[in-house]
């Protein structure tokens, strides 16, 4: 190629390059110019947002439980920081506020070029010192920001909940959230977060050479709505103290048992309680032990403290998420089903005589396929109580009686004269096996075992042999993994059946209020910043048919449990009006390495029921011995009696 041609080629390439520049310039400046100019104009405005204070939380009597106070916080606005000032500024601010410089560096980068972010809250003294030296700290300002204050400390912690920085999932779900501002993470703080949160304020301005040259009218933040709880602080305090004493009592009893050479597996550590208004389904008290102080989360909880509390499961609200076999407390439901559905006893069985059952600790089964008989022994409760009708059976918590109800139902189903799941259907209707719909986080649904569920489990287990089994291997060999014994276990609240303390409380509320099912609520109403009161939303009540005679019979028998039955010892010193108190003990058999869980459900007054009190002591031992005295103490308070010390009751079921 000749030299001149090479130069010409080069010239042509250069012309092409310059044409690209010219065309692109035309595109940006002329074709798209007007749109870009508009976007550019808008982009010169920088926004500064301020966060609204969270709404207050009150108990049902108007006692303030949680509020917000304004505290000084150090903010950095990068718009006002020149690049060369950056490193020195980070050093200085980190030493003043007490933040790790590397962490501050990361926050600075994350905020973006014109970003403004909160470094941290500081004391009034520090804020004053910073204000004095603002000239040396470009971009730094001290702003008043709202901070949560929990006036009741750990009391009601699981209901009120706590705050925490939003996680990626929260940010994805609610794009309006600021990743540096804490939101509700548990309890009412979480469920009602959007109500409590309020609306942030903002100021928009234009900056030139680090100076504001133009400003738009500011939008002030609007404080979040306040919340009034159904819970009563004084009652809650009683309940929490009683639970703690109950746990201590259980450990004393265990100590005694150990010294008597009885087998004890674990220390008692956890407990839960629910006090419910049976007519309104207002939650009057709801407690889980151990608890935590929500204030720890306000400035950010340190890892050691968090891990320590997490170890003891202090953040778990056992009242709504703890799952236990309801045990003998469930006999009240079997009782009601038996009367309502006229459930038969098995025909031609030893120990059945009309309405009476021979409660001698054994049940003779002769319905086996080969015609042979088998004696099922109640190993746990070998008492010989003689011949009992349904009333005596509930009062004494006779397993043999309720086994016979289950067996009769099972046989009737096999003969085609009854529905198979008649007992489970009752359980479902009164609130087991599904969430109650309470306005709290992490509610567990529990399990109602049925033939269908067991068959599903079997299928799953055969398909996924590596996962932990739910059914013992022998059952997989059977045509159906569901046996009559499973229904017998179910009738006394054992087996694969699990429920939360809240479910046990609501089921009793339904039985004693005449059959009305509602969603329990911890929140009564919300009050917005202008004082408008909005009652909390709840679903329409559902009524199930319960004969008033059945209800009256149950109430009377619950009264007999307390006044002469399995809880009589625990209610010995109840004081005035004990005849108007009813209840049911329960002792749940758990796994082979756990002690029994202690239950008690109390109802008062039984002539016109108003309160249900459910107590669960996790691995607490016998219901009558440990849980009943706790409930008694609380019910003394509810009925206006002087609560007497929580001491050992009688060991029962």
């Amino acid at each position, binding site marked *: 190629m000749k030299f001149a041609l090479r130069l010409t080629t080069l010239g042509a390439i*250069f012309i092409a390059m310059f044409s690209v520049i010219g065309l692109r310039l035309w595109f940006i*400046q002329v074709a798209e110019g007007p749109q870009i100019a508009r976007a550019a104009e808008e982009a010169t405005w920088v926004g500064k947002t301020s966060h609204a204070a969270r709404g207050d939380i009150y108990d049902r009597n108007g006692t303030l439980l949680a509020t917000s106070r304004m505290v000084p916080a150090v903010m950095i606005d990068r718009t006002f920081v020149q690049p060369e000032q950056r490193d020195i500024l980070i050093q200085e601010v980190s030493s003043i506020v007490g933040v790790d410089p590397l962490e501050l560096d990361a926050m600075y980068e994350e905020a973006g*070029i014109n970003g403004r972010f909160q470094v941290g809250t500081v004391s009034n003294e520090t804020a004053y010192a910073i204000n004095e030296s603002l000239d040396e700290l470009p971009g730094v300002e001290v702003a008043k920001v709202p901070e949560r204050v929990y006036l009741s400390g750990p009391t009601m912690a699981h209901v009120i909940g706590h705050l925490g920085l939003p996680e990626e999932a929260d940010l994805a779900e609610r794009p309006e959230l600021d990743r540096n501002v804490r939101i509700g993470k548990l309890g009412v703080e979480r469920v009602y977060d959007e109500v409590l949160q309020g609306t942030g304020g903002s100021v928009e301005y234009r900056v030139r050479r680090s100076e504001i040259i133009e400003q738009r009218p500011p939008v002030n933040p609007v404080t979040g709505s306040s919340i009034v709880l159904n819970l009563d602080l004084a009652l809650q305090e009683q309940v929490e103290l009683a639970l703690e004493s109950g746990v201590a009592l259980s450990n004393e009893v265990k100590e005694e048992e150990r010294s008597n050479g009885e087998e004890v597996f674990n220390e008692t550590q956890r407990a839960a309680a629910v006090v419910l208004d049976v007519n309104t389904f207002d939650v009057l008290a709801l407690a889980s032990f151990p608890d935590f102080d929500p204030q720890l989360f306000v400035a950010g909880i340190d890892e050691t403290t968090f891990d320590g509390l997490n170890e003891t499961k202090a953040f778990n609200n056992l009242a709504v998420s703890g799952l236990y076999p309801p045990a003998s407390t469930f006999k009240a439901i079997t009782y009601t089903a038996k009367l309502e559905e006229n459930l038969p006893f098995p025909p031609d069985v030893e120990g059945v005589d009309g309405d009476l059952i021979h409660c001698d600790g054994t049940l003779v089964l002769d319905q086996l396929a080969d015609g042979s008989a088998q004696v099922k022994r109640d190993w746990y409760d070998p008492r010989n109580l003689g011949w009992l009708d349904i009333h005596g059976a509930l009062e004494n918590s006779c397993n043999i009686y309720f086994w016979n109800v289950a067996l009769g139902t099972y046989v009737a189903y096999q003969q085609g004269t009854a529905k198979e799941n008649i007992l489970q259907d009752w359980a479902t209707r009164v609130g087991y096996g599904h969430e109650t719909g309470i306005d709290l986080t992490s509610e567990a649904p529990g399990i109602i075992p049925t033939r269908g569920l067991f068959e599903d489990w079997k299928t799953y287990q055969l398909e996924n042999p590596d996962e932990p089994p739910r059914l013992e291997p022998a059952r997989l060999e059977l045509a159906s993994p569901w046996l009559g014994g499973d229904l017998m276990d179910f009738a006394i609240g054992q087996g694969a059946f699990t429920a939360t303390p809240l479910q046990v409380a609501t089921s009793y509320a339904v039985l004693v209020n005449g059959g009305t099912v509602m969603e329990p609520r911890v929140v009564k109403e919300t009050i917005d910043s202008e004082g408008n009161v909005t009652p909390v939303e709840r679903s329409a009540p559902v009524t199930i048919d319960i004969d008033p005679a059945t209800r009256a019979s149950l109430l009377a028998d619950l009264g007999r449990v307390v006044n002469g039955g399995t809880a009589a010892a625990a209610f010995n010193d109840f004081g005035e009006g004990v005849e108007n108190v009813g209840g049911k003990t329960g002792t749940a058999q758990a796994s082979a390495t756990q002690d029994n869980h202690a239950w008690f459900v109390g109802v008062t007054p039984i002539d016109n029921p108003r309160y249900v009190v459910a107590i669960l002591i996790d691995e607490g031992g016998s219901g009558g011995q440990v849980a009943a005295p706790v409930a008694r103490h609380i019910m003394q308070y509810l009925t206006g009696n002087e609560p007497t010390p929580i001491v050992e009751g009688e060991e029962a079921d």
Partner: protein
Amino acid sequence: MAVLSRLREVAVDRGRNKSDRILFGTMFALSALGLLMVYSATRSSGSVGMERQMIFVAAGLTVYAIISNIDYRELKNLIPIVSVAVLIALFAVYLFDPINGARRWVPLGFFNLQPAEFAKVVVILLLAALLSPSNRDEIGQRQLSWPTVFRALLIVALPAVLVLFEPDLGTTLVFGFILFVMLFVAGATWRQMLALTAAAALGVVVTLQRGWLEGYQLDRIRVLFNPAIDPQGIGYNIQQSRYAVGSGQLFGRGLFAEGTQTSFEYVPEQETDFIFTAVAEQLGFVGGILVVAAFAVIIWRLLVIAANARDRFGALIASGLAAMMVFHVFVNVGMTIGIMPVTGIPLPFLSAGGSFYLAMTLSLGVANSVWLLRTPVPGENQLT
């Protein structure tokens, strides 16, 4: 000017040829506009950017006048000295504290010398000397030998690598572009050009695969393809620059107009690397395209000078300078309008900065010298 013209009469007698007035006029106009723009970009911050730049312009024009009147062929003799000087300076930058994370400067008190800017001109001279015939036997050879190509590569390699580690990837790429263009003009075969292209492509692939690029360099490339990513972080420059250029529209918002993107100083480095955003915003498409056209004129003149040079040495110098100029304009303007990644390559005559301005006027001075001496003296053997 009177002094300059008398100096010329006294210093050399070039006979019939006159300075390239178009070249000088365009350079002068761009420099004047540059001063206005530097003033516009720095006036609100009260900096003395414009005063400093005026000194550089005065010094630069003087350098232009002096170099114009030195016989460019004399420069061949100076090449060893200036090469060593520039190499020493390129090493010297590593002795000083980095500014904004890079070691590109040798502080001299009154200003910071940026050796890489002069290294470009020295490399052009070196390559022109290498690629032009050095004895009678070579005259008339049309094609470059492979050893010559490798020697050219070696010449460029040392300064390019030194600059790369400052780090200044942009200037390294300028060296590459100059080498590529000069080899082509000097008569490299298609095969040689293809081999170089393949080697360059391989280099890019290996660099990307090995992760030799710094995170911020990768970000600058990513943001080019997706300007919307992170407008408050890595996309900030490109976004603000696009806002400024777009806001200029057809006729601009007026010189020194208030309330512009550039007057708010939203565009970073706007008196240096991003000076074109101030031009485009204040003078609009009309002003912007005129500036681009002015560069086109300079490059046209350099190619004309190359075509008319009396020897291959002069022609190659002019071609190399044209390549340097094109690369600077294309990459610099390209980055402000979002077609090139952000690199620290300034815009000739407009961007504030002493070393670069002096290097540019020096370059055009050499080109003018080639132009002045384009006509062979009767009887002279052209070494072409």
